């Protein structure tokens, strides 16, 4: 399998299904041939410029697409699930360039592509693939915002972990999981993060939750318990 030669990942289990968090923050479910990414936020810089006049480097959509393309190439999935907030808003989706739209279409070719709707992109749209508020596949359920149901994979919160290593502080987007459900990190390039100790986030996870840190070699650490709200 391609993946075993080209990437590092961390494997964990949910409802006895073995899942792999890839170093990019995408989730690969080998048995179901399913690749899951969350919070792509395509068109963010355009929306920021429109709303505030700030002109960020307008390259985040193609940057995100390039990483997604690489993950798709490496895993050759039968199905891709985008877990919501794929577009920064409807106008940002409309404003996508021809090149970006074609790029998405090319990746969609020959596979089932599912856009889960999110709070940034609640409307259904026609950018290829199918669009729906949630999706169940076998024992797992995919939706944008968690309801803490068993076997659920969600996004929305952009979780980020912070560790102190011999006087150095390292902060990485992370996937949070406990025995019941998992929250994926944001995949988009210009997506900030919510600290894993933030009560709003910490209260969604069980006491013994773990965080899988993205990066060259994803690895898991326990989420500190003291900060639980």
């Amino acid at each position, binding site marked *: 399998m391609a993946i*075993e*030669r*080209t990437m*590092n*990942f*961390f*494997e*964990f*289990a949910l409802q006895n299904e*073995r899942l792999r968090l890839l170093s990019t923050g995408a989730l690969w479910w080998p048995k179901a041939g399913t690749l899951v990414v969350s919070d792509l936020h395509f068109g963010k*810089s*355009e929306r*920021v*410029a*429109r709303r*505030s*006049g*700030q*002109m*960020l*480097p*307008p*390259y*985040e959509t*193609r*940057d995100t697409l390039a990483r997604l393309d690489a993950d798709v190439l490496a895993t050759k999935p039968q199905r891709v699930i985008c877990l919501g907030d794929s577009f920064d808003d409807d106008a940002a989706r409309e404003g996508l360039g021809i090149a970006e739209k074609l790029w998405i279409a090319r990746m969609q070719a020959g596979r089932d592509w599912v856009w889960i709707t999110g709070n940034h992109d609640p409307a259904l749209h026609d950018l290829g693939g199918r669009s729906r508020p949630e999706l169940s596949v076998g024992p797992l359920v995919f939706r944008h915002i968690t309801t803490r149901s068993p076997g659920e994979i969600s996004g929305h919160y952009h979780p980020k972990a*912070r*560790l*102190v*290593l*011999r*006087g*150095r*502080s*390292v*902060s990485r987007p992370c996937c949070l999981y406990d025995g019941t459900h998992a929250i994926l990190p944001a995949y988009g*390039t*210009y997506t*900030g993060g919510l600290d894993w100790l933030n009560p709003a986030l910490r209260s969604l996870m069980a006491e*013994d939750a*773990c965080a899988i*840190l993205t*990066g*060259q*070699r*994803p*690895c*898991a*650490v*326990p989420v500190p318990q*003291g900060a639980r709200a």
Partner: protein
Amino acid sequence: MLEQADANALLLIAPTGGGKTLAGFMPSLAELADGMHEGLHTLYVSPLKALATDIRRNLTAPVTEMGLPIRIEDRSGDTTYTQKRRQRADPPHILLTTPESLALMLSYEDAPRIFAGLKRVIVDEIHALAESKRGDQLMLGLSRLQALVPELRRVGLSATVEDPSAIARFLARHPDPCQILYADPGPAPDIAMLETGIAPPWAGGGGRYAIPAVLDQVKRHKTTLIFHNTRAQAELFFHDLWLQNDEALPIGIHHGSLSREQRAKTEEAMVNGSLRAIVCTGSLDLGIDWGDVDLVIQVGAPKNVKRLVQRIGRANHRYNAPSKALLVPANRFEVVECVAALEAVKERDLDGDPRGPGPRDVLCQHILIRAASGPFRAEELYAEVKTVGGYADLSRGAFDRCLDFVATGGYALRAYDQWQRLIERDGLWSLRDPRGTQRIRQNVGTIMDTDLVKVRLKNRRGGTPLGEVEEGFAATLTPGDTFLIGGEIVRYENLREMVVEVTRRPEKPPKIATFMGTKFATSTQLSRRILQMFGQEDWPELPDATRDWLHLQRNKSRLPETDRILVESFPFLGREYTCVYGFAGRNAMQTLGLLMTAQMETAGLHPLGFVSTDYATLIWGLDRLEDPAPLFDGDDLRTAFETWLGANAVMKRTFKQSAVIAGLIDRQTRGQRRSGKQATFSSDILYDTLRRHDPGHLLLDITREEALKGLVDFGRIEELLTRTAGRIDHVVTDRPTPLAAPLFLEAGRVPVEGAGTERLLEDEAARLMEGAGLAITQEDARRWRVPF
């Protein structure tokens, strides 16, 4: 002063405390005495708000006494909104302000009306402003003022500097001449090394060994200022000083990380004479005359003769008495540096680096400010900018690139046609959306103090503020850690809404306060003096301990020379060490360390880490360096430099600063961060994205230029290579040499990066998981890697 009152530009150079500020106002008072002038007459700009307030008090008293019809007001970030509005509608005769407040005033549409009658502008402490981007912003502001009122006369007030003509060029409208007036420099300072009777330690920067002798001096003087080079050192020294202060002499502490309330308290106590000493940092380099200070003690090497002289001037502000100062070298090497500095002071040989061309990020902000005040023509603004000394050589192409960046973002991908910030119509540039002015005003300024978080005592109703620490330092704290702030040991409890909450813990030893690690590099001139001293046969002027140490070094190896690079190689505890004596200052030696280890990595020498001081870099690794010469090949170093520079953390920090100044990302105010409402973008990610997709972008150019000048200091490596021209002495010994030995005790070791961080992360993750008793997944689900 009055005789020269009509000069277009005039620079007055006088030692600290020469009453030069009031002299600067004499012509204004004379011209305003008849009560005929309407509106603003004189604008006074100083780097410190406190100074403006102080001058207002000192100036108002005689004006009121003499019954002169002159209105004097100050304006800064602390001035109330109503007061500011009133000042715009009805400006006082004399307005005292800061560069940032002036820039703000210039951003208003009614700027031409506010400044219509302006005759004079006085720039106080111009030598300090000239050292930073605040000075560039101010001079761009003056070019705007001069365009509004062409007859404007400029006066600069400066402390003693090494190159008055450079400051004069900085002040005057280019290419106008600038007259320079020199005040009597006064008697030579009474300056010496503090006799402690104890040899200083081999390494370190605290100067703690000298505390009994320092206390003794405090007792014998009315008021003593005890200067330190860093805030952390000031804190540690202050803490230990109090442990030995048996007579409970009233001694306070003052530095930029303390809360405003706490600093104000110390300043007040100082003014009313209830303190015998203040432990302080550069925060007291400028500012209010304290009056009764009769001794300045400098702990740690002065690094820079000019700053030392200006600090010494803080003692004895009476004009004809010599200032008294004592130097306390913190370690044995600094003894040499202190002696070299004493000689330089005696010979009045000041140091300083020439100012480079005006930074373009500040220019971008200036263009934004100009746009906020109303439509403008590019060629007119360009002509104005060219009258600023630092931008005199700016090409039209470079200017247009900045304008394009401000207007469109300047990206290779033309993405923002609809949303661009400035639009051109009939040759006039203006803001597309007039509401943009508010954002521009919020981001005015070049001071970067936004990476600080507040520290306060934890209690139910929001405790006493103690001060601020760097966000990076706060991020390394875990609950239970102790550190020093304001002389108190506190325990870190938690971070709440970007405030570090702490409790008092006097009984616990502090974790080292590493906040505010900014260290000045020893100046080129002072380094050269030290090298010259090494050339002497003997050193009767040095204390015995240091003198013996240098003889021993000459015996076992050799002493570094001015025109040569000394490299020593020796084994120690199973590692191979290489010590390079470059005397290029801390920042450049750090950069050299990074570059050399990168080269050694390529050469298969397996370097593991290095540590740098102002004079040397010590590298350790697995294999011995046989021939150092190839490592100093200029071209190779430059190539390594280009490769290394791009991904460097220093570059990212510099990018963030330039991106904020140039208006790409917003300055973060504390309120915004706390509410989390403001969308913020990681500047590191923006930097990486820009480098990947638009490597020729203006901001990357600016970042590179600024990093080279600042933290990377590659200029001094170039200087080193030119000075030594391949003359390298390689000494191989069987053990550490006397001069290299102290480097083993230096803090600030840098591991050679590579898989370093990942390795650390994995180890820590494994440790944490095991500690938590967590079985990560089923046993068969181990992480699994195949190298490809």
